[in-house]
């Protein structure tokens, strides 16, 4: 879908963005707050769930969820994600478009008020959040991190990042995170909430039928009680690796995981970004990629072997699930394929396939309310929201030399293996 975002700058680092929903049946409102990671580490990991669990007006989850169910099953959720070395805290509301409400109620407006209540009127008193509810959310946050071990692929990915970025904010470990959550209290979280509203770069996305003036006025009014001092959001880019760190750990599992961390050579998030994306895509993106065709299809070494770019930190990560006895062969072949990329040994067909696939995917990326919301959220640190058509043009203009240049900047930093315990017998 073609979109024409309307951006309303409310004050420095605070804006709302409106996109008409067209024929969508769903509307989305998202409040995104971006702050540097580290300060209030534990509190910020608990807050999004706390804020969406109950509010001052609906102090029990049953009351809040009753209200949401009455609003035709509107969904309110709070999440924290990584955005480089910053934390992106998002409160998201998804609801039906007004034209489907059975009794003419303005569902969008009611949901916006509920979302603003969650952000500005939490269940709190006398400089403290409700301590029972905060302790409950603390437990859930800790158990959530602990149970991430159950997903071995994700666990191996996270371990690799911790090792590779041990001296960087990106490398804050699971243990450090869990400690920080456990040490937080309902009082410290109350302060963290106040600081979040003061410090964060904030963007509200509206996808659907909303009155922009009325919605912006409501946001302005809520923020008028906050003394805003937005802070800078920075991320350290390490241009190249000095030497290779190899770490192998064991776990009682059937399939070993091999994860490789590379420094892309990027020095900031926009640094040669189109060439970087496409290089990674030819190397290990789609079904036409070098890793899929060689490590999986030709050598039958694995079910998955793929590369991805962590654009916000300038890292390239290769992930694969293998037999431990095939580890060296898989590693050699992955590095061999990277050398081929650097020497321009990829084919014209692969180059064209990647370009076509990337442009095709981008052209359809705005066909859902979620897609539009994600597109806008990714632009939170950018002054102008560049239309997706412009990105497509940038990809279309890329040449083989651009891709080779990007590949040549890559250096291997860390090789992490999560070895299955009983793999040695070659079973």
């Amino acid at each position: 879908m073609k979109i024409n975002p309307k951006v309303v700058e409310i004050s420095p680092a605070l804006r709302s963005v409106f996109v008409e929903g067209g024929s969508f049946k769903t509307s989305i409102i998202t409040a995104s707050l971006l702050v540097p990671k580290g300060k209030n580490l534990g509190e910020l990991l608990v807050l999004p769930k706390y804020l969406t669990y109950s509010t001052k007006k609906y102090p029990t989850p049953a009351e809040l969820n009753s209200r949401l169910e009455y609003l035709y099953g509107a969904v309110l959720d709070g999440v924290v994600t990584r955005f480089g070395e910053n934390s992106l805290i998002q409160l998201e509301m998804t609801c039906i478009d007004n034209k489907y409400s059975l009794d003419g109620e303005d569902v969008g407006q009611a949901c916006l008020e509920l979302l603003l209540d969650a952000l500005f009127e939490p269940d709190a008193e006398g400089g403290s959040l409700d301590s029972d509810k905060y302790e409950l959310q603390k437990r859930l946050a800790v158990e959530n991190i602990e149970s991430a071990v159950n997903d071995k692929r994700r666990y191996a990915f996270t371990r690799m990042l911790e090792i590779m970025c041990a001296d960087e904010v990106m490398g804050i470990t699971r243990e450090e995170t869990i400690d920080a959550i456990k040490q937080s209290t309902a009082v410290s979280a109350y302060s963290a909430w106040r600081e979040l509203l003061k410090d964060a770069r904030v963007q509200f996305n509206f996808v659907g039928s909303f009155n922009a003036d009325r919605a912006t006025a409501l946001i302005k009014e809520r923020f008028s009680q906050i003394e805003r001092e937005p802070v800078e959001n920075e991320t350290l880019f390490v241009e190249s690796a000095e030497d290779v760190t190899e770490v192998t750990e064991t776990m009682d599992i059937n399939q070993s995981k091999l994860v490789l961390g590379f420094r892309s050579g990027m020095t900031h998030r926009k640094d040669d970004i189109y060439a970087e994306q496409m290089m990674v895509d030819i190397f290990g993106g789609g079904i036409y990629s070098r890793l899929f065709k060689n490590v999986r299809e030709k050598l039958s070494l694995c079910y998955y072997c793929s590369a991805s770019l962590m654009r916000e930190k300038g890292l390239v990560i290769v992930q694969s699930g293998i037999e431990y006895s095939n580890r060296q062969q898989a590693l050699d072949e992955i590095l061999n394929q990277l050398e081929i990329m650097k020497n321009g040994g990829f084919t014209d067909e692969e180059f064209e396939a990647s370009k076509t696939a990337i442009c095709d995917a981008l052209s359809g990326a705005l066909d859902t309310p979620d897609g539009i919301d994600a597109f806008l959220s990714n632009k939170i640190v950018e002054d102008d929201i560049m239309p997706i058509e412009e990105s497509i043009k940038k990809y279309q203009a890329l040449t083989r030399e651009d891709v080779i240049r990007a590949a040549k900047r890559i250096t291997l930093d860390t090789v992490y293996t999560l070895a299955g315990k009983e793999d040695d017998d070659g079973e």
Partner: protein
Amino acid sequence: MTVSNIKEVVSERLGERYFEIEHDSGLKMIVYPKENYASSYVIFGTRYGSIDTAFRLNDDREFTCVPEGIAHFLEHKLFESEEIDAFDRYSKTGANANAYTSFDRTCYLFSCTGKLKENLEILLDFVTHPYFTEQTVQKEQGIIGQEIKMTQDDPNWALLFSVLQAMYKYHPVQIEIAGTVESISHITADLLYKCYNTFYNLENMVFCAVGNVDVDTVLEVADRILVRKDKVRIERKFFEEPDGVNKAYVESEMAVTAPLFALGFKENIRTPERTTRELILSQCIIELLSGKTSKLYNELLGDGLINSNFSSEYLFGYGYSSLIFSGESEKYDEVAKRIKAEIDRLSREGIAADDFERVRRMQYGRLIMSFNDIDDIANGVVASYFAGESIFEDAEVLSSITLDEINDRLRSSVHTDCCSLSVIKPKGE
């Protein structure tokens, strides 16, 4: 141009419409244009999944029994051809192509914004032209072997199958969709052809295109590629289950941080298929029992017995039907006890009218919201078609179900003496 019968299907309630085509080849084709969408999502699926392990074709006297995991294996192998495989062909168009196998269907799909006609050609062509050799079968055993090992390390996947094995004594819903490294070693090219020729006949299949699509383009390609073949009659074995569960309790160990549990309530059924009405009623029952507003959910959470990994689902298909509650808890016995007590209480006292209306309203909203994503719609169309219904049926049913019906469904389908608890404990405890 071939003669095909085209019918427009409209839902005033949802503000949605699609075209249903009885193609001359015997294939049912659904073309579902969505205004303002740049992309298209297309599925070509067959009613054939992991549970189809025993079947009779036409006048066969005996049931043919095939190795576990063969439907999934066939899905992988169909992408290959004698000349250029389907992935390489898609590489030229830029489409995002994939496939999946579930308990009861196998679907081949792609999404794209450009070159719709070329992509349709690839899809319809490769799915109707199998090419299997012993050599390519062997190559795939390595790749699928790794896929199986990957899923064996996924505790939530293991938990689902362990509770199904505890509930079902004979039904093949309890076998892993991809089979085992051992079972797939028995797959041969001949067996793949046997399964293909049984289940990949166009009368057993469905096609669905949603988004930036139109009837003329679809028909132009279909008329050219699809060929009518002799009708086949498939008889699936109905694995009759004894009333009651296979085992009331099972446990195992894996590399997990805390015990995982799944509590499954098996419905004793006399006929293999469930209606849309039964499905909608069961989904409402789950919400009423353990949704975020429910007394049970909030007490379990507040008392420290469950965490955000708690979930519940109604799982049903040809010959099986069950409600499954799962999560992570040190006190899984207590959780199971409370879920059963709440079911007994609700059955005894009946569901409150207010609660029912609130949940119905919520389900209505969620249903409306599901008509945005073209992939959700396409998968929904396919699932509904194989169930013998239209995707628009859910909204009609939802608006007409009554409180008496939901209370009846609860009392007749969920029995606390017909359930299994499966627990996965951390290794070495």
